[in-house]
């Protein structure tokens, strides 16, 4: 046999190497596990958040939930790859009191490291670009809606939320807002830090000691909302909560009319 023939036999073509790789039993098992784990995460993303998160009542809440669902989808193949290799190794375990024989001495594979790094970078870029576009869209919305927004001054104090509607001259401890109308919350605190969280509206901003912070939202659906404090603020933090409503235009007008006449 000539040297040339020997070389051909020892060096299969890339296609042959790929075929050999893909038909290996451990590779086939890992592929199957990859499909399984990826599917688990896709189903998890698809079912978990829509099932457990509260009713979506604003554009901001819709955006939060959409990000969590889609980031789970995007993570699914990465999680699937990691878990499929781990599961395959687990199923291939060696038991007993003596160690197994040495495995193949794979010290590095620059191509795999490079592909992994590029893959991670792409995943991160999607997350970053998505997040930045969303933040930017919310900022543009807030600026565009500033003139027509209903403004509500929110004051946190140990352990009570107070809402003042300056245009309507209403002071209340229940948060009512009109549907399909932009709302601006000017938030502050008279004592320690609180965090204003109208849950179903998907926004949150801290109420800082004698400093005003701002949050914007546009409620899209009528219905009840829960308002909570998301920052530990002392003794009765757990009970610093109230309720409210996103109201239809007619209900809103009736409520404003009724409350405006009251002396706060």
């Amino acid at each position, binding site marked *: 046999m000539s040297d040339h023939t020997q070389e051909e036999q020892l060096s299969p073509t890339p296609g042959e190497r790929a075929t050999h790789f893909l038909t290996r039993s451990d590779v086939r098992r890992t592929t199957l596990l990859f499909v399984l784990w990826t599917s688990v995460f896709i189903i998890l993303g698809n079912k*978990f*958040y829509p099932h457990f*998160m*509260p009713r979506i009542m604003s554009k901001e809440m819709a955006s*939060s939930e959409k*990000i969590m669902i889609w*980031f789970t989808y995007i*993570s699914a193949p*990465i999680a699937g*790859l990691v*878990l499929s*290799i*781990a599961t395959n*190794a*687990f199923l*291939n375990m*060696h038991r007993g009191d003596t*160690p*197994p024989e*040495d*495995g*193949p*001495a*794979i*010290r*590095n594979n620059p191509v*795999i*490291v490079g592909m*992994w*790094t590029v893959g*991670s970078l792409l*995943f*991160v870029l999607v*997350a970053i670009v998505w*997040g*930045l576009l*969303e*933040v930017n869209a*919310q900022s543009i919305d807030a600026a565009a809606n500033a003139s027509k927004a209903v403004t509500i001054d929110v004051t946190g104090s140990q352990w009570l939320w107070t809402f003042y509607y300056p245009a309507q001259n209403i002071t209340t401890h229940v948060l009512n807002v009109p549907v399909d109308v932009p709302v601006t919350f000017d938030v502050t605190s008279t*004592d*320690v*830090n609180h*965090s204003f*969280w109208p849950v179903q509206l998907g926004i*949150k*901003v*801290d109420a*800082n000691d*004698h400093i005003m*912070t*701002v949050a914007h939202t546009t409620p899209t659906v009528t219905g009840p909302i829960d308002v*909570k404090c*998301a*920052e*530990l*603020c*002392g*003794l009765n*933090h*757990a009970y610093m909560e109230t309720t409210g409503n996103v109201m239809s235009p007619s209900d809103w007008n009736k409520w404003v009319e009724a409350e405006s006449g009251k002396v706060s």
Partner: protein
Amino acid sequence: MTTLDTPRLNARPVPNPAKSLITKLNMGTGVVVGAIFAAATYWSLYSLLSTYTDKVRDPLTSVNDNKILLATMFMWSIGFLVGIGAFIGPWRWLIGKDLSDEEILYMAGDGQGWKRYFKYCTDHKVVGMQYLVGVMVMLGVGGTMAMMIRTDLAHPGAKFLVQTVYNSLVGLHGITMIIAMIIVATGPFGNFIMPIMIGAYDMAFPRLNALSWWVLFTAIPVLCSSWILGGIPTGWTAYAPLSVQAGPGMNAFIATIIIFSVSTAVAGMNITTTVVAMRTKGMKWNRVPIFVIGSTISVALAIPAFPTFMASQIMAGLDRTFGTGFYETLQGGSGWLYANLFWIMGHPEVYVILLPGVAIIMEIVPVFVRKPLFSYGAAVAGMAGIAGLSVLVWAHHMYVAGWLPSMNGPFMVTTEMISIPTGLLFLVIIGTLWRGKPWMKLPMLSVFALIWNFLIGGITGVYLSDVPADNYLHGSMFVTAHFHYTLMGAALTGAIAGLVYWYPKMTGRMLHERAGYISFWFTQIGFNVLFFGMFIVGAEGQPRRVLDYAALYSHANLISTLGAYSVGIGMIILLWAVIHSWRHGKIAPMNPWGAKTLEWTVPYPVPLTNFDELPVVTSDPYNYGKGVSS
């Protein structure tokens, strides 16, 4: 640098213990002198301040009480260190002298048996064991508080605890666990194992090594005193201005952090210097075991991080004692200043905790899979990349604080970027597993647990780093679940794997295997039940740190509590296994796992200076495997 010189010390006679003050000092004398210093400070300040004002006679509410309590706590710490003999060496230097060779040998604990564990002992192995016991006590106390919290949350209605106790439990559980987790790997294994791993006789600064432990020890009663003084209402983050208006228990928190920061700085400098300067011949940087790299990056990261934490607490202490108003808006200060200082420490601190745990796992995988560590360079780059980026991400904890919303975008970018080096760590672990046949002993089992837990912690971290998603999730139970998956599910799992792995070298015995397996499954299944339940209530909208909640969240909370009990049972079984095996375990062979790092080349008990002759290293410790394949 004072290190033990083996040939010189071997030639020395055993000293006469009666000749030196050092021989008469121990933990008991430390406690007595510390108590005297504390009592003297308390009564002298009380008398002095009551001369000028009547407020001091009010029941622990005035700024004078804060002054008295803080000074008392610091003087306890200083007094203890005086009483245990920590300053004998520096005092000798001050008067132009030094310790004699006999005294140095005595301080190293030579021939003192169990008593050396209660002395100012400079032997790194003794310090490692002191840290191990200290960490186990702290985890036990912190874990017990977690069980109380979960018991309260089992049902809505807050029938088990009252608000003050619950809020204090939340804060004290947090800070106890954070302190324990910061030292959980670098304390016991960084001190006991790491110097042997790099082929050194000792640490670079043995006296500072002892100092780091005993300074930390003085912080433990200070933190415990918080209970007597009314607890802390702030959570472990101790946000201002709530911390400024808080009762006297807050002083204990402030003093603890300041004392702990000193300990961390000392330990961090010592470990870093040891690894940089004392590696044995032939141990080039690319031959250093990956656990040593992970620990060094971790403590190096702590060196800039913890002084910031210390500064934040000094300023909080000044606000409470002198009304400086650093954090009071109406006095020109800002709570945002505190939040920034806290998180400038707080986010690197997450990686200070995480990196050694993951590094232990990367140390274990090649040994049990009998393959080289896949892409050592990627492992180092991953950990270094995480450390580098971790100092640029702190304000993702402040997206909803209202502080500089225009910076949310840049902080979101840096935070998301950290996924790339983190991904490299996953690649190294699964790359090492690839085509391997893992030897399924207890340490190896933890590798699989870490992969799962760290993956869930990582993916949920991506949501939280994204501003619009964080607007909903911030401050909810979802965050609590996320960081427990990272710190407990990954870092603590890694540390427990390290304990099981190095237990034979540290105690000379094998850990009770069956108890270890039972503990593992109780802990890991319970852990996932506990925190999956918490993900659910977080997604549903339950804020964290509340002692009561709406009926909507009751099922998932009950499931979480059952999971917590399972973790508790698992941890008690592990504790039993550790204590029982220490005395009755099977005698361990010198190298039970067939590992190739240097600590497995020394016998048990490890000689005082580790090696008769320093070893020469000719390759990295992962040269397993046959042939080269892909």
